[in-house]
């Protein structure tokens, strides 16, 4: 049987940060690993991101933040995910996030934050292992 189901990953840049090199490289690399990647571009609000996640029925939301505003944006997205019952969606992130903030975020429900320099394969394997809905 031709398998139809693909893992869908939303890559978003919340807030005002315009550094999109990492997000774009990751989107393209995940595509080459067989994922369907919805890339929203820069200047997204938490509302934009969660709405997109719902309409696109994604398995993963990945936030890319290099502006220092990570605590605020992740908190907002987590709040909206909870409010909308997005329980089966994995939330991950990447960018400039100090270790203690990373711990805080993981305790709040972010599955993982990837440092600059993380090999893409590590990210794609993490996704495959941790998505909450089976691939069938």
């Amino acid at each position: 049987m031709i398998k139809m189901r693909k893992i869908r990953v939303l890559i978003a840049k919340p807030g005002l940060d315009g550094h999109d090199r990492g997000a774009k490289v990751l989107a393209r690399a995940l595509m080459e690993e067989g994922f369907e990647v919805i890339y929203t571009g820069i200047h997204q609000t938490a509302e934009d991101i969660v709405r997109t996640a719902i309409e696109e029925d994604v398995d993963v939301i990945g936030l890319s933040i290099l502006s220092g505003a990570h605590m605020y944006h992740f908190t907002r997205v987590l709040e909206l995910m909870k409010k909308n019952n997005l329980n089966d969606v994995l939330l991950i992130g990447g960018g400039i996030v100090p270790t203690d903030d990373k711990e805080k975020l993981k305790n709040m429900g972010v599955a993982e934050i990837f440092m600059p320099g993380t090999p893409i394969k590590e990210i794609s394997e993490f996704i495959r292992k941790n998505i909450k809905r089976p691939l069938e």
Partner: protein
Amino acid sequence: MINDVNNKMEISKLITKIENHDDELSTWAIKNIKGAQIIGITGVFGSGKSTIISKLALKYLAENKKVAILGIDPSSPFSGGAVLGDRIRMKELNKYDNVYVRSLSSRGKIGGLSYFTADVVNLFDALGYDIIIIETVGSGQDEVDIYNIAHTVVVIHVPTLGDEVQVIKAGQMEIGDIFVVNKADQGPADEKVREIETLITPKNNGWSPKIVKTVAIRNQNIDELKNLIDEHYKFLKENNLLKEKLILRIKYLIKQHLNYKLDNIMNSTLSDQIAEKLLKDKDVKSSVNELLKILGDNYGKGGNI
């Protein structure tokens, strides 16, 4: 089957189901088609399709219509993955509840739409969306596919800048009902209009394709574009062509489902065996017939290929 047609979460899961093959849901969708107006938009990268769609959607939303937008991007023939980036230019729609944007990949069908895109369209139709806009890259095959699904096909061009050569492809001229020269403020737009004019011929159904210049980013002439689209839909209605279009759509759907089954068999070891036999001592006709028989038997027995 459907609890709340306004619950986007539910709708979203249904789309995933039908996109991944669900005969029952496909049937339900067909039986509940309410008569949405389907608009196909095609054009090369950089022609401003997403901006035009966003502005058009706003116009329909202002009429209190429910709008669904399907953005189609090609999947990688190697990995099967895809980058779906059409939403980027449609941020302004996030303020509205009555619009739904979904990104689809061609799921391995090179240059075309995925097997079950028509089913997704039917689903939106059945869920009460008044306007369904489908956006594709315009690579060739998907334009032909769009023609089978949409009531109106809109082809977007831009003025030719500098030395580059922009080829107007034959296929586009045949399927386009409305031609748009977007970014009309950025180059010799009238030249492009004339170029298109020379290539247009009236359609078999009597419709004379129309041309319009727009500057979508400034919302210029989008009203005119919308009027032309609605005019075309009215033309189909008044000439009793809507039923014909629906039959075309369903035929296309059946063919896609058939293709899915066929491709499944061709991916299996069965087809390897048939190929080996053909090389040895069988002939082409009987090989094909054998395949058809397997397909038929399988379905006769409620098989699952």
